[in-house]
C-alpha cells in the first residue's frame, strides 16, 4: 500500500546513509524539495545516480551528502558549470567522490534494463571513444547472429528512486504530463520509491494525456507544492531560468555557497519555509 507522508517523514524513513538514490527529472519535474530535505537531515555516504545532475545534486555534493556519482552530463543547463561538482572532482572538496561516468544513451538503456529486471542492457554506444578506458563497467559482446560488436552496460537498480509529478490520487496513483524523461524507468528500476507531487486529487487518468504510474509501484507520496522549483512543473509553474543563472554566482565560491545553504536550507524547517524565504529575498 502506498503511504502518504510528509517529505520529512519520507526522507527519515527511506533515505539511509550508504544507499543508492536516483533522483531523476530530465529538465522537467526535478525533485528539488527532496534534495534539500536530504541536506537538512544531513544524510551522507549516498551513491547518487542521475543522467543530468544539476543544481540539486550540486547542492547535495557541496554539502557532502555523496560518496559516489553516476551521471552522463553534469552541468548547469543553459548556464555552464556545476561549481560544487567540479570542486569535488577537481579538488576533492568537501571530500573525494567516486565518479561513474556514462553517456545518456547508456544510462537510458541501463534504466530500462533495471525496470525490466534485466542484469544488463545492450546498445551501440561508446564506439571509438575513450569511455571504456575510464569506466570498467562498459563491456562488449558479439551479436550471435551478425557478429557485430555490441556494447553492454550493467542495469541500474537503485535502492531508492525519488521523482516529482503533477498529481497523485488518494490511492497513490501518479499522473505526470509533459517531458517525461527517464522518471518512469528510474522509479520502476528502484527497489523503493518516493514521489513528491504538486497536489493530491480524487482521481487521476490519462484522458487528458500524460502518463499514469499505478499505486502498487509507489511506496510513498508526499504533497510538496512547487517541489520542483527552480525547475518547472508543466501546468503549474514555469522554469526559473533566473535562478539557474544566479546559482552560478552562489555556487562559485565555497564560503558563499555554505553561507547560502545555511541561510536558506539548514535554517528553514521545510520546503515551504525555504520558498517563502527565497521570495522575501527576491529570488522568486
Amino acid at each position, binding site marked *: 500500500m502506498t503511504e502518504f507522508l510528509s517529505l520529512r517523514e519520507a526522507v527519515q524513513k527511506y533515505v539511509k546513509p550508504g544507499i543508492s538514490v536516483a533522483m531523476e527529472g*530530465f*529538465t*522537467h519535474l526535478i525533485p528539488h524539495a527532496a534534495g534539500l530535505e536530504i541536506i537538512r537531515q544531513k544524510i551522507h555516504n549516498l551513491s547518487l545516480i542521475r*543522467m*543530468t545532475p544539476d543544481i540539486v545534486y550540486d547542492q547535495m555534493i557541496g554539502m557532502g551528502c555523496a560518496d559516489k556519482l553516476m*551521471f*552522463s*552530463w*553534469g*552541468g548547469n*543547463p*543553459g548556464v555552464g*558549470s*556545476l561549481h560544487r*561538482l*567540479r570542486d569535488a*572532482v*577537481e579538488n576533492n572538496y568537501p571530500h573525494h567522490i567516486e565518479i561513474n*561516468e556514462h*553517456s*545518456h*544513451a547508456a544510462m*537510458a*538503456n541501463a*534504466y*530500462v534494463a533495471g525496470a525490466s529486471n534485466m542484469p544488463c542492457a545492450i*546498445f*551501440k*554506444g*561508446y*564506439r*571509438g*571513444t*575513450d*569511455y571504456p578506458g*575510464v569506466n570498467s563497467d562498459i563491456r562488449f559482446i558479439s551479436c550471435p547472429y551478425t557478429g*557485430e*560488436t555490441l556494447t553492454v552496460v550493467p542495469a541500474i537498480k537503485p535502492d531508492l528512486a525519488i521523482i516529482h509529478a503533477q498529481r497523485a490520487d488518494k490511492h497513490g496513483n501518479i499522473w505526470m504530463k*509533459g*517531458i*517525461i*524523461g*527517464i522518471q*518512469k*524507468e528510474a522509479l520502476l528500476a528502484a527497489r523503493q520509491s518516493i514521489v513528491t507531487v504538486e497536489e493530491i486529487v480524487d482521481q487521476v487518468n490519462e484522458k487528458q494525456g500524460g502518463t499514469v504510474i499505478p499505486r502498487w509501484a509507489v511506496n510513498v507520496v508526499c504533497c510538496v507544492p512547487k517541489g520542483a522549483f527552480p*525547475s*518547472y512543473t*508543466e501546468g503549474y509553474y*514555469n*522554469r526559473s*531560468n533566473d535562478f*539557474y543563472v544566479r546559482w552560478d554566482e552562489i555556487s562559485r565560491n565555497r564560503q558563499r555557497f555554505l553561507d547560502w545553504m545555511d541561510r536558506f536550507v539548514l535554517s528553514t524547517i521545510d520546503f515551504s519555509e525555504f520558498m517563502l524565504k527565497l521570495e522575501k529575498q527576491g529570488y522568486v
Partner: protein
Amino acid sequence: MSKTGYTSNEMMVITASRFLKNDAVVFIGIGLPSLAANLARKLHAPNISMIYESGTLDTKPDRPPLSIGDDELSRKALSIVSVPEMFRYWLQGGRIDIGFLGAAQIDRFANINTTVIGDYNYPKIRLPGAGGATEIAGFCTHTLVMLQQTSSNFVNTLDFISSVGFGKEGNSRPKLGFTGKGPQAVITDLGIMEQSPETKELIMTHLHPGVSVEQASESTGWPLKFAESIKTTTVPLEKELSLLRKLEKMMK
C-alpha cells in the same frame, strides 16, 4: 560588434542555419545550434523538424528556448517521447538527418572532447561530459559542429575522445558500424572546415569575410590545410541578421 556590422557568433549561427534544408529532421542542443535551427525555420526552412534531447519531436517554439527543458518546447511539440525512446528509436534508429555538436576540443579528424581538460582522474577542468553527443555523433546521418576557432580548441591530440568525428585515422566510421556519415562541416567564427577526401582531415574550405588564411592558421593547433580554391562565406544578409537579433531579444 565589429566594424563589419555583425558579430562572429552571428556569422557562425547564420552560416549554420544555411546548412539546414526545409525537410531536415534536426537534433538540437541549446545555444548557437538552437538559434541556427530557429533562424532557419523562420527563414528558408519552415518545415524543418526540430528535435530536442529532452524528448520533444518536431517542436515549434515561438521563441528560442533557454534550455533543452524549456517549457516552451514541450508546449509546442508534435510529440513528447521518453528519454529511452529518444535514444533508441529515433537516434540509434537512424531517423535523424542532422545533429548539432559543440566541443571543448576538436582534432583534425573532427573527433571531439567535451569531457575533461587534463588527465581524466586528476582533471584540470572537469567539463560537463558528453551527454547525448556520443551517440548523436554516431547515428545522425550528418553532424554539424560549431565552436570558436582557437589554437587551444583545435588541438593536435584530444585529452579525451568523447565523440567520434571521422575516427583516429580519419576513416574509422565504417568499421565502427555507424549509420551516420559524420561531420558535414565544422563551422567556426573564422570559416568552415570540411573533410578532405584525400588526407581525410579537416581542411578550411570557406573563410568568413575579412578573415585571412594566416589568422585561421594561427588559430589552429595543427598545421591547417586549405582547399585549393578557398571560398568566402556569403556575408550575413540583412533579413538574416535582423531576424537573428529579434530571436536573441526574445530570449532575454
